[in-house]
Each structure stands twice: as C-alpha cells, then as structure tokens.
C-alpha cells in the first residue's frame, strides 16, 4: 500500500538540483582557465567571464529579447498543443483516416525550416507571426505522435466496459481515452517544449527580433561572447518551459501514475 510522498520530494528540491550544477561549475571553471591561459582562442570560444560581462552590458537588450522569444515560443507551443491534440483525436477516429492523413503529419517532422522560410515570410510577414509559425511547425509533430499513441493504447477491457454501459464515442473519448492518454501526451509535450524554443530562435533568424536576432547580429559582428550569452539564455528558456511541463505532469499524475510516484 503506497502513500503519495510528494512532501518528501518538495523538501529535496534544492539538494536535488545540486548534482546538476556541479558539472556546470567544473566546466565553466576549466574553460575560463583554458581561455586565459591561451589554450583556447577567445575569438572561437569565449571565456565564461566575458560571456557574463556581455550579459551584464547588454542586459536590457537581452532581457527584452528573451521576453520576445519567450512569448513567441510559448504561443507556438500552445498552438501546437491544441492543434496537435486535436489532430491526434481526429486521426484516432478510424484506421482509414489514419492511413490517409498520418503521412502528412509526418511532413511536419521532416520539413527543413530553412527551405520553407521564404514561404513563411510571404504568408506571415516579418515579425512575431513568422516566429510563432516556425515554433509551431517544429514542435507539433511530437504532440500528434504521442497523443495518438496514447489514445490508441487504451485498455480494450475498459473500452468494453464503456460500451457495456452505452457510453457514446465522445463520452468514451473524454472520460476514458483522454485521461488514460495523459501520461503519453505529457511526454509529447516535454519534447515539444524544447523544440518550440528552437523553432522560435530559427524563426527569428528568418523573421527578425528576439534572441535569434541577437545571435544573428552578434555572430555577424564576431561578438562570440554575446552569441554565447544569448544562446545561454535560450537554453534557460527551454529549461523553464520543460520545468513547467514537469510541474503540470506532477500535479495531474501524482496520485495515480507510476512516473510521478517514488
């Protein structure tokens, strides 16, 4: 007989983060020494101290850029969550529909963004909309794939049970298949969250603004320190979004799914 031990987990949050910090500190320290000692050329890989300095110097610009990218990535992610789940529900309705339309969903996975970039700009113009579209295109497929798998993996006995009591397809979808698919859906969202950030940054290379623009311009100016600063912030953004999904997963699954139980 198990008891949810989430209280125990909460207390352990800070010590839990410590192991992850140690490699970071070690690598940063080693890199700093390497650059200062001339082992690594500063114009190829910047000293962490110069990255930090760049962050402080350009903090207004970087903060603004980070907010812009966050908004676009988040919006793109939300759109791909809603659309992805919707498309998966549609695909789950019949074998024939799956066979007819699933290959086109795979298109989202494989299309190289750079190739369709000019099209995106023509359709959505320069600015936020292209960035959001880019984040959407890049992140939607894992949502579709995982949600579909989750919905189709429903226990057949439970489906029989619902049939036995005359539940309609819609009721079965909302009361059985969807909740049962939740762990799988959240897995898909975890993957999609990181991709949404990447998609937003690439979209910003194409459409301007945000951290992507900072990276692009700094690269042209040969300011490696600023490039690294912006890239670091983009990683932080990705981590934050990932952490958000984990939080949602914890809250919704902790009572009943093995993945959130000790």
């Amino acid at each position, binding site marked *: 007989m198990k008891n949810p031990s989430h209280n125990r987990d909460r207390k352990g949050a800070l010590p839990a983060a410590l192991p992850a910090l140690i490699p970071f500190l070690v690598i940063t320290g080693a890199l700093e020494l390497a650059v200062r000692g001339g082992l690594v*050329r*500063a114009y190829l890989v910047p000293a962490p101290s110069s990255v930090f300095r760049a962050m402080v110097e350009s903090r207004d610009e970087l903060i603004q850029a980070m907010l812009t990218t966050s908004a676009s990535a988040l919006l793109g992610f939300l759109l791909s969550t809603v659309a992805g789940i919707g498309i998966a529900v549609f695909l789950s309705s019949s074998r024939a529909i799956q066979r007819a339309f699933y290959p086109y969903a795979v298109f989202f996975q494989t299309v190289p963004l750079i190739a369709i970039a*000019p099209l995106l700009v*023509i359709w959505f113009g*320069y600015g936020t909309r292209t960035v959001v579209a880019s984040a959407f295109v890049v992140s939607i497929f894992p949502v579709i794939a995982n949600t579909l798998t989750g919905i189709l993996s429903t226990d057949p006995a439970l489906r029989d049970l619902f049939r036995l009591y005359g539940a309609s397809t819609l009721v079965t979808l909302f009361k059985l298949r969807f909740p049962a698919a939740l762990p799988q859906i959240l897995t898909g969202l975890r993957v999609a969250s990181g991709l949404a950030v990447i998609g937003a940054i690439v979209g910003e290379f194409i459409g*301007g603004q945000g951290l992507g623009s900072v990276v692009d*311009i*700094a690269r*042209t100016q040969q300011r490696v320190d600023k490039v690294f600063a912006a890239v670091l912030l983009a990683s932080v953004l990705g981590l934050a979004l990932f952490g958000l999904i984990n939080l949602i997963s914890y809250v919704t699954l902790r009572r009943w799914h093995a993945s959130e139980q000790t």
Partner: protein
Amino acid sequence: MNRRNFVLGAALLTACGKSSQKIRLALNWKPEPEFGPFYAAPYRKYGLDVDILPGGAGTPTVQMVGAGSAEFGIVAADELLVARSRGNDVVALFAVFQNNPQGIMVHASRKLTSIADIFRHPGTVAMQRGLSYARLLEKMYGFDKVKIVPSPNGDVSAFLHDKNFAQQCFIASEPLIAKRLGADVQVFPISDIGFNPYTDVMATSGDVLRSKPEMAKPMVAAAREGLRIYLDDPKPTNLRMQQLNPTMPLDLFTETAEAQRPLIETEETRRNGLGSMTKERWETLIKQLKDLGDIQNAPAGEDCFRSF
C-alpha cells in the same frame, strides 16, 4: 614496382613534399562568378594541391582560417579588421573586388534617387544588421522611418512580393535574378556612401605565413593568374561552377561574370596588378571602423595585408 623506382619515387615526393600537402581554401558562399578566379586558378602549375571548400549562409571563414581548419579563406576587408581586433591573426593577400560589390536594391517604381532616400521613406529594408556598412547607414540616416528585417540571403521572393521592399545584395547578382523574374530593379552601391572595403579577399593566418612561408606566394600567383583567365574567358570555369551549384542557370553565370568586371579590373589593377591592395585603402577602412566603434584598438594598416 622494383626497389630502384621506389627509392626514386620517394625522393621525388620528398622534394616536392611540402607543396604536395593538401591546401584548403574556404569560400564564404556557394560557387558563383565572384569565386571564378579561384576555380580558374592553375594551382598545379605552382605546385599546389588545393581543395576548394564551398560555403553558404554564415560560413565562418575568418574563424576557420584563425582556427586552422582552412589554410586560406575568402573574407571581406571589414570582417578581417574586426577579426584582427579580437585577436585573430588573419592577413589579407589578394583582393578580387577592388570596389565593394555590395548594394541595396529597390523597386524602380519608387523613384528613389539615392541611398539616403531609401531611409527617408517608409518601407522594409532587409540587411544583415551586424555588418559594418549597416551600422554606418544607421549612423548616417537613422532607421526610424523604415523596418529593418533579416537579409533573405539571396532569395528574392520577399522582394518581388512587396513594392516597398529593399534588399541588401551583390550588385552583379540578386538584381539580375529579380530582373529575370519580372521586377523593375534599381540598385544603389554601398560604395556611394564612401564605404568601400576590398571584398572577396583571400586571406591566411599569421601562423601559416610563419610556419609555411613557401605557401602564400605561389597561392597568390595562382589566384592572380586565375583571375586573368577568368576575366578573359569565363565560360569553361562557369561550366565547372554551375555543376557544383546547379541552382543558378548557366546564362545567369555569364551575365553576372560580365556585370562584375568593372569592380575587379580598374586603373589601380592595371598599374599594380590584379588583386593588389594599398596601405591607404586599408587605413581609410580602419579609421571608418574605429569611428563606428566596430574596432577598439586600430591595427596598423601594413600589418593587415601582405603583397606578393
């Protein structure tokens, strides 16, 4: 192979040992007429075994040369100066373009009269904002009336789509493409505002110059001869390049090669040889970049290039 031949062969190889080492030349774009001289150059004749590495959007040639992943690279003069100011010891050897082939293209229907005009009227301007000329333009004219967007890197579809769209370009390249697709194009060279860095400069690292001194001179000689060959008859080289870059039709290669001539062969080159550079030009550029704030400590002009 009997023993005597083997020894002979080995001796020969050792004799030209140094010059039969693989030399990498990194380009900063796809094979196009601007690199004609390098594809036409008779490297073998000068005892060089050269591997040309085509590039694309964002190929970091100046870093590649600095890091040693290419012995020679094609860079722009302003880019080279910025690199030197960051501690990257790259040295210019040979300049294909005496005059900067960069420009901004607009729709002729707008009836604009100068580069300044572009920034006085509302519209979209696509350019790489981090480049020195862009920052110079911002300083001179201000960007408050226009919307600056990233450069589409050679793609003209956004330009065709919008009459008020202006785009950074290579004078001999994108405008010709846009014209073929039906646009009425007007081009303003960046050199109009007095910014005229040497472009498509073959550069090497200080390391290479010091450790392999016998490499640079024949390389420059080969490039010079290649440029002459290409100017006189670009056709065979264009054919070779077109096979490497099939996205561009052969007749466009011909047209572009013709259009870029006046930027390459000038009074200066007739006097001092193709690809030659002067200290004065470098010092002018250094001053401009220093005023812009793109470089902090100004290097000495003569340190930035070597004449062979």
